[in-house]
């Protein structure tokens, strides 16, 4: 078994951010993301300011930038779309290094890229400082239906088990000389998927039996005593979106962004 027992996006630390109750962090992250999403694409200074706020929180959380930055690669498809916008958008064009690009496209592209990076960065920071069980309980406290959080919990719990089965099945196929190169060779793989589905279904039944054997009657019981959020927790966590609001309002009031346009 692997040495680590935490999920791949989690950074084990004892920072103030790690110590906050999960639901407080979820609210703060969501609020920050709303500020990011409502910042106009043209407000370059605000985006820089928001990025700076996120950098400070990342530093406070003792999450290494070397850890966070590679994982931001998840937004690459958005960045590619953003990079295309200046060339495909219509409207007045300007020459940049001898290439004509649409002004609206540049603005839209920048806005899309900045929002994607900042939104993903905030979410990554949330999961880097919160373990999955805490996160799910946090969502439950925020009145997310328990049916949904339970489905997520079971999915996460059994994902590795099923991935292991897929791996063993592939190995068994390869061991007997199966090496698909063409589309018409995919039949065994499809049959394997069918088997896997049935196995997972049967496992589901066995897990359900195991739950009934310990008194399960349809409702998940409360199994942990959680720490309640105190005022200080909320103040600390909401400092993130509040600072973001201040940055955003300040740039639009002072008109720095207008000046740069």
């Amino acid at each position, binding site marked *: *078994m692997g040495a680590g027992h935490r999920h791949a996006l989690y950074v084990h630390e004892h920072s103030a951010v790690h110590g906050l109750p999960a639901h407080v962090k979820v609210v703060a992250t969501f609020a920050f993301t709303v500020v990011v999403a409502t910042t106009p694409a043209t407000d370059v200074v605000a985006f820089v300011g928001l990025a700076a706020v996120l950098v400070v929180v990342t530093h406070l959380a003792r999450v290494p930038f070397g850890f966070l930055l590679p994982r931001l690669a998840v937004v690459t498809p958005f960045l590619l779309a953003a990079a295309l916008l200046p060339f495909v958008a219509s409207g007045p064009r300007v020459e940049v290094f001898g290439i004509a690009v649409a002004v609206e496209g540049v603005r839209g592209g920048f806005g899309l890229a900045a929002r994607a990076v900042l939104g993903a960065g905030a979410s990554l920071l949330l999961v880097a400082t919160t373990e999955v*069980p805490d996160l799910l309980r946090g969502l439950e406290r925020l009145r997310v239906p328990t049916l949904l959080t339970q489905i997520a919990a*079971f999915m996460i719990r059994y994902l590795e088990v099923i991935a292991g089965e897929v791996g063993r099945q592939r190995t068994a196929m390869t061991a007997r000389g199966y090496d698909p190169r063409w589309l018409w060779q995919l039949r065994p793989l499809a049959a394997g998927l069918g088997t896997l589905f049935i196995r997972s279904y049967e496992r589901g039944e066995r897990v359900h039996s*195991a739950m009934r*054997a*310990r*008194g*399960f*009657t349809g409702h998940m019981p*409360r199994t942990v005593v959680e720490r309640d959020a105190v005022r200080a927790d909320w103040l600390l966590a909401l400092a993130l979106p509040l600072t973001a609001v201040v940055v955003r309002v300040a740039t639009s009031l002072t008109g720095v962004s207008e000046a740069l346009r």
Partner: protein
Amino acid sequence: MSQTPPPALELADVHFRYPDGTPALAGIDLRVEAGERVALVGPNGAGKTTIALHTNGLLRTEAGEVRVSGITLRPETLREIRQRVGFVFQDAEDQLFMPTVGEDVAFGPANHGLRGAELEARVEAALATLEVGHLADRAPHHLSGGERRRVAIATVLALRPDVLVLDEPSAGLDPASRRELITTLAGLDVAQLLVTHDLPMVRELCPRTVLVDGGRVVTDGATSEILADEELLAAHRLELPYGLPGRA
């Protein structure tokens, strides 16, 4: 009330056939006294797991009766029976479904109404008995086979059962983990029904053995006598490992 306590587990003339009509049990009689350890052995397909699944009502008997500490298994008593029978499944992967070990151990007692400090104390005690307290915050799928088995036992021990029913508890364990398991089971003060093919473990742990085949009890007696009867074992596709004392 009589002086002797009722048997921890009692199956009386239990019949069962699977939904497709396959007969599985043809009149099983089985008793496990309070605090007693009994082995349930037999070839593959003999009905061992089917018997085990009847002990806490996971399968419904077609005819016959199941009693746990004198309480007859009925829809009204199902909940209590499930608290009194601790069922440890063959594949711990099926048994451990909560995000952390601690929550998994809490699952059973929480279903039976325990909350707060009382629940925490129960969980801690169960983890301590199995010496797995340090694993409380770990995810079950990141444990070794031996750890998983111990945690699985802790999850049912937290219910304070009258009888533990263990399906193939030593399967897939390395020799050291198997040894630890045997020591643990020997130290638990609760009646146990061990469903297994591991005859050396049976010889160590269980003074009494019940041999089943074809959905019937073939013999029920002293382990030393049954395991010494090579002909009987061979007739039911069992044998002691080669080279072990007691084997010709």
